[in-house]
């Protein structure tokens, strides 16, 4: 007997399989569109994060004795904009539309319109990586390549933070931490792998350790590939709060910016020991605000903290904080000619400091400020991220990425 096609007409005028199938499809579609109970309209949250209550026994290995503070600009080859054709030349950009200014100062060497920028990283191989609200982008050989979940190029949005350990690129996201060596395949790490939380806000590579600031404390990745986690609970309150907006390393100290101030961990002691911690807040010191949005350490070891109420430079040596000395800050805000009190990004460059604000890019030199705005060629006024490679300041805004040639700017 020849088998019948499921949709074939029944010569007897009756095809039970067909009608049963139709009813099934109809019921399925109806239930998907109309039949959801009210409660089901509420999406389920992700599974809870892994239990992180185990006492931490590891401390990160200290940097080699007398080792200088790792400086990314020393390890990263020069990315001279003139070496490669810019992604968009200033002249091209000036002609992109009536809403855009018609002439661009010559100090802007690269201009790449992109989705809102969260972080920039000039990598050792000369590529520049950009974390954006839509995913990841790469600037190389005069071309910009966007990689997003939509096109399958990068599995998460947004990408929030970037770091390079010399062998691999690390990308923080709200869906976990990603690692890639070729820019095409991404290995994902989550709370199940030992991260403090899947939502990664900031990354820092100190030359030996990868530091990860998350929604629920910090993690650090040991050279053997394991992640260790320090939360407020594990540190017995030493780490003042959960959200970590910025992490930096200075000698033995891990600086963890959260929303209760700057928590400093003396990493020679286990994190669970409360005396290993000191938190500087706005109530006991003149720190401008408790929310630390960005941190940077200069070559000379000066600690800079960007907050919603000003850019702050720590005047007190950290070792003195652990012996009871009250922290003193120098604060740069609107009263000192900053365009806004809020500062989102900071990069020390020699004796200068560059700051990203919602209303412009600021250079502070000798206590004096110079502000750059869209009238000076910024793609957008809100400078959200900054990165340095020799001679070039990379600037991220909600409009994209651009590179400022510091020599040309000074001339």
């Amino acid at each position, binding site marked *: 007997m020849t088998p019948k*096609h499921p*949709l*074939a*007409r029944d010569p007897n005028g009756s*095809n039970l399989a*067909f*009608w049963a199938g*139709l009813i099934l*499809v*109809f019921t399925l*579609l*109806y239930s*998907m*569109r109309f039949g959801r109970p009210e409660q089901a*309209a*509420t*999406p389920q*949250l*992700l599974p809870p*994060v892994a239990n992180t209550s185990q006492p931490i026994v590891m401390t990160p290995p200290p940097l080699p004795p007398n080792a200088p503070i790792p400086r990314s600009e020393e390890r990263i080859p020069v990315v001279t904009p003139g070496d490669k054709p810019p992604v968009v030349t200033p002249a091209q950009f000036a002609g992109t539309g009536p809403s855009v200014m018609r002439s661009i100062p010559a100090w802007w060497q690269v201009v790449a319109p992109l989705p*809102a920028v*969260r972080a920039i990283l000039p990598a050792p191989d000369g590529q520049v990586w950009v974390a954006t*609200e839509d995913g990841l982008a790469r600037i190389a050989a005069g071309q910009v390549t966007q990689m997003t979940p939509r096109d399958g190029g990068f599995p998460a*949005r*947004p990408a*929030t933070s970037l770091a390079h350990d010399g062998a691999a690129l690390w990308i923080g996201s*709200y869906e976990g931490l990603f690692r890639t060596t070729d820019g095409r395949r991404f290995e994902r790490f989550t709370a199940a792998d030992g991260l403090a*939380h899947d*939502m990664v806000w900031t990354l820092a590579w100190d030359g030996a350790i990868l530091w990860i600031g998350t*929604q*629920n404390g910090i993690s650090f990745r040991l050279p053997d590939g394991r992640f260790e986690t320090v939360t407020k609970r594990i540190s017995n309150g030493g780490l003042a709060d*959960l*959200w970590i*907006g910025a992490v930096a390393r200075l000698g033995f100290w891990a600086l963890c910016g959260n*929303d209760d101030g700057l928590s400093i961990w003396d990493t020679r002691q286990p994190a669970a020991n409360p005396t290993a911690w000191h938190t500087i807040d706005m*109530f006991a010191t003149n720190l401008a*605000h*408790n*929310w630390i949005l960005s941190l940077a350490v200069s070559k000379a070891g000066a600690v800079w903290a960007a907050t*919603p*109420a000003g850019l702050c430079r720590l005047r007190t040596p950290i070792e003195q904080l652990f012996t009871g000395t009250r922290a003193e800050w120098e604060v740069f805000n609107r009263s000192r000619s900053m365009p*806004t*009190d*809020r500062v989102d990004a900071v990069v020390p460059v020699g004796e200068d400091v560059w700051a990203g604000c*919602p209303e412009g890019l600021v250079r502070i030199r000798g206590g004096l400020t110079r502000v750059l705005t869209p009238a000076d060629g910024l793609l957008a006024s809100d400078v959200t991220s900054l990165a340095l490679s020799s001679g070039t300041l990379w600037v991220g805004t*909600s409009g994209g990425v651009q590179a400022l040639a510091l020599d040309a700017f000074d001339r």
Partner: protein
Amino acid sequence: MKHVFGFPQLVALLVIGSLIWAGLGTGGNTLKIGVIAPLSGSTAVYGLAMRNGLNLAATAINAAGGIGGRTVELVYLDESNDKLVAAEATRELIYRQNVALVIGAVSSDATMNVQRICERARVPLLTSVSTNPFITRVGFRYTFRCLSDDTVQAESLARTAVRRLNLRRVAIIHDSNKYGSMGARVYAEKAAALGQAIPVSVAFDSGMTNFSPLLESIRQQNPDGLLVWGLARESALIVRQARELGMRMPILGGDGMATTGFLDLAGPAAEGALVTMPFNPTRGGEVTRRFLEDYQRAYGTEADSFAAHGYDALQLAATAFRTAGERGIPVREALAGISAYQGVTGPGGLDATGNETRPVELSVVKAGRFVPTES
């Protein structure tokens, strides 16, 4: 040769196609607004009232044709008074549900963790419950609040405590979270400016049930007033246990106590307590009267401050979406432009930082109800 497709198959295809088309069409005609609130747990009393107010507003907006022809769909996520869950909920709403605006959360701790994500994603956040002043003082462009903050509330309380109640020494007991600690801090500043002393200030953690040791330490200081800055459940237990310990001084509190959940749990011990009441039902006129009636009809209970502010929050959002559509501007800009509005909570407005501008009133607990009083 047999025909593979015939009339029934054609009908099936048409039916399936129509259903898919209908589904897509309806989805594209919906304006999704995310809501983050505690809908379970010890602070659900706030979240559920807020949800009722929001639902009532959504029903009214949709009955009037929606917003620009689009139906408002509220996507609720329960954060159970957990700021980590609130952050995860924000991620879900913005990056997976693609909501156009977020309303929430309830505790200031949670709202701060929500607002940082919204700011980066450039999705407007409107909170109708959280009162920590920081929320609108961090220079964030996408955060708005339609409720008097703790600075306003603490000032009103301190002024009344000093000038009307003549309290010279007020002890403070407050939640250790960002709502309680900032409320206590702001009150202490305002009180000091008015010459009132704070002999003792102690903190408790959410979830505590036995406050006797803390209250004993307060009693030893012999204050002539007690300020409680916490959420309903803990505040009610504190008030009860204070009275049980024989502490008879006037009790003051922030709007965390301005809910029937506090009254129910505190019982007679709440009598005489003076609390900030951002919603005075007698002040809003006809609009408020209609809201109260509709609310009573819909939920069989009286609307409280959190329900009323939830209602106003969605109406403000709707106004912003309409304005944005009419003028071709971003919703954030439209929301920032609302310098004055008439809500069911009375006349209000948003200042340049996105914060509510109106003063707060006070209520005293009489016969188990909040009765508005002159501050």
